[in-house]
């Protein structure tokens, strides 16, 4: 699209006869309506379906999504697992089982923060007074870096966290590790 417009610009500038035969109205109709409309419609529809897919957690089966509360406060993230009895909350580290859809419920205790794990996709703002939901999913076990992506004061740059994706047993161990000690 960029090369097309720039190419046309340079062609009309440097080649005196270029485009002379097309009357101005045609130029505007073809370039201003016929060109962008189909592209935009297709793109918007595709983005909508993709968005729905992501909202469901990038998977077809969304019934067994595991809920995690992510609470932002200046300048740390606290994660807890309300549906897992006996699990412990932890600051700065989010444990998740790989291959399962996770529903993050983002809340804030002070100013607006934003939960984001770049490699797991999507971000959601933690707005005080609201509980916002986002679904993420790690297909492979491993460590993923996460950051706060809404400016939240002088500690914003250091408000990082880590996502550790385990296999199922490793996950249960991790969230109950300290009670077992």
């Amino acid at each position: 699209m960029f090369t097309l417009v720039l190419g046309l610009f340079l062609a009309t500038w440097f080649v005196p006869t270029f485009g002379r035969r097309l009357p101005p109205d045609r130029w505007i109709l073809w370039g201003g309506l016929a060109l962008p409309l189909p592209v935009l419609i297709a793109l918007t529809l595709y983005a909508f379906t993709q968005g729905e897919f992501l909202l469901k957690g990038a998977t077809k089966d969304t019934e067994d999504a595991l809920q995690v509360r992510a609470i932002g406060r200046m300048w740390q993230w606290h994660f807890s697992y309300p549906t897992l009895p006996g699990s412990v909350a932890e600051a700065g580290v989010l444990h998740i089982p790989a291959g399962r859809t996770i529903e993050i419920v983002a809340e804030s205790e002070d100013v607006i923060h934003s939960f984001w794990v770049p490699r797991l996709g999507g971000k959601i703002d933690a707005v005080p007074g609201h509980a916002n939901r986002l679904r993420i999913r790690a297909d492979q076990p491993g460590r993923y870096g996460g950051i706060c992506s809404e400016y939240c004061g002088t500690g914003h740059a250091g408000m990082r966290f880590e996502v550790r994706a385990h296999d199922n047993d490793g996950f249960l161990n991790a969230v109950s590790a300290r009670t077992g000690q």
Partner: protein
Amino acid sequence: MSEKITSDHNPIALHRALERIWGTRPGWGRLAAVNHNVIGVRFMLTALVFFAIGGILAMLIRTQLASAESVFMDAETYAQVFTMHGSIMMFLFAIPFFEGMAIYLLPKLLGTRDLAFPRLGAYGYWCYLFGGLILIGALIGGVAPDSGWFMYTPLSSSVYAPGINSDIWLLGITFVEISALSAAVEIIVTIMKIRAAGMSIDRIPIFAWYMLVVATMMLVGFPPLILGSILLEVERAFDLPFFDPTRGGDPLLWQHLFWLFGHPEVYIIFLPAAGAISTILPVLAGTPLAGYRMIVAAIVSMAFLSFGLWVHHMYTVGIPHVALSFFSAASALVAVPTAIQTFAWLATIAHGRPRFSIPMLHIFGFFFVFVIGGLTGVMLAMVPFDWQAHDTHFVVAHLHYVLVGGFVFPMLAMAYYWVPHLSGKQPVQHLSHAAFWMVFIGFNVTFFFMHLTGLLGMPRRIFEYPAGFGWETLNFISSMGSFLMAMGFALVALDFILLFKFGRPFRRNPWRAGTLEWAMPTPPPSYNFASIARIDNRADLLDPDRIGPRLAAGDGYLGIPRHDRMEVLGVDPISGEPDQVVELPRQTYLPLWTALATGAFFLLMLFKLYWLIPLALAVVIGCFWLWTVCDGSPIDREPVSIGHGLKVPVHIRAQIPPSHLAMVLTLVANATLYISLLFGCLFLWVSAPNWPPKHVSLDMPLLVLAAVASVLTCVGNRLASRRTNLATVGNALSLCAHLLSASLFLWVAFLTLPAPSGHAAIASLFVVMIYAALHGMIGAIFAAHAIWRALCGHDESVRSLDLRIGRLWHDYSAAAAICAVGFCWNLQILIAGSAP
């Protein structure tokens, strides 16, 4: 009526006579300047100084980010620097710069002598300057705003930002916005009413169409921001919890209000630049602009669309996906009018024979950069992509591509095109090429690589980042590019200084343009045209070389200076036929004094000296009242001759005088603010946590009585204008009814409501009542003014302009009072209905 003849069609004598009337006095007299040439240039120069300051801040940012774990600035300083960079560039550079450009150019393009309200322009300039100085003073003092240029609450509210920093942003920017609103009113009225004869609506220069759309957008775009600033300042100062979630407020209210302004703002900045291109490009291509009507349709639809897509700045705040899709589609759709304009320009070049010149080079820069910015914009309009890229450096790169591409390059093209007009000199050397390429290459190096930094996950607004994420090389390249760009801008500045100093003079119309601004001597005289033209073709297809000398000889309308008055022609907005002579006010210090008093009000707010504020307000009102006293003589005058055998009434006796139109526009802006307030309060009811509050009972009979009283004011006004002998009685009725209505609202708000700091619902009721009371008090001033005039012996039956303007205000405040009472009643029912 005798008319002094001071000219017998001798251009030199005519020039001397007009210059004596229109010219700005030397020395201290400069402070009294109201001429649009002077004010426009002041706006642009001041904006350039702020651009330099903002640019230096940008250099500081790039220095900080050039390496990982930099120790150049700490987090607190960095927060002030990036907040001020954004705020300065948006509010103190971009908007005022194009305002200045419009103020300077519009009267010339429209073929007239000045804008409709010269004093308002001067007042706007002083407000802009003083507001800007408050912000820069804070920057030097180390207490600059530090919550980001969009000031999200609660980070900017008093709990998390207890210092003066946020107050400086809220008050300083609101002070500056006065100049934006006054410029908007002035521009619309001028384009509608003050033009050359015969310039019908389908003949006005394309730039005037753009500015008409832009000014309308400003008129309804700025009030939500001003409202947001007022509410947040009220929360910070008096603890009314509009944005505090623990007491029924909602931080999202701020975001909606901010972006309801913030997105149209992007188009407000882009459209004047596009207007400049649509004016320059056809001249450089040597062919008329293709698709004039299509372009007008495109920009009008763009203006409408731009108000429907503010939510795309808020994709990640937890709004349902289906709602997001609507805004996503609207965001994508806005690409269509842009595409129409782009292809109209391409068609123009295709059908012409483009000249190689510096402005053309900058237009190339615009095409290159802006198309990339537009495409990344469509990418960001897609919700899933935005979830990933939101608040990263990708967005930073995108917005710089849009704003620098869509504003800075066209402005440079415009500067190279019109500076010969302003200076009367043509460029002589070839620094311009080097300067362009340095800016262009520097810009692309800086921001192209920033897209990648963002895609690699680097968020915005972090003052340091650890090594090892792969961000260092890209950031270093960006920083180097930005230094190159800064040197390029320095070179541009040097280029212009050299032009002013060593450029060679020229005769008329160096670009062989077809627009009226070249039909005058350059640099332009204060009165622009010695007489006003009648045109018979579209305003960009004229022959300035033929028209210019004839106008200079006084061959057009109003070619004879009369009674030392500054006269311009008022025309019918549609047909362009002259329907009045508008007498403009002469040079005066009043705008300066009024702006100083306004500044005192803002400073008292800033330093929390609230007990002195009524005094400052009284001074402001007194100053504004003096503006009206200077207006014209109390004697009625018959229609006056404008030359060529035509006689038209003076504006005070005309059907639609400029000031009447200006009042309508002011009320439109005011109504936008009020509607935003009412919907904002309802939004809290829908969205905010901790609702509803405990039971609230209102004293409804008193409120209804207040509404009835406000209706009586309209009755009083009509009585006064119908029957001359009842003028004093009618106006006295208006005055008393206004005072009664205002005191009832104040009584209910202060004495019967629970403490407004307890819950946002009560705060909403409180603020709505204060709004109604304020309108009553201002209405009382209007009524008192009318009584004063009647007592001074003005015959209001024929010359009823002041009464008619007052009537607009009375009607509006009555409607506002009724809405206020209805709103309070509804909210009370809603609270009672949903109370636990």
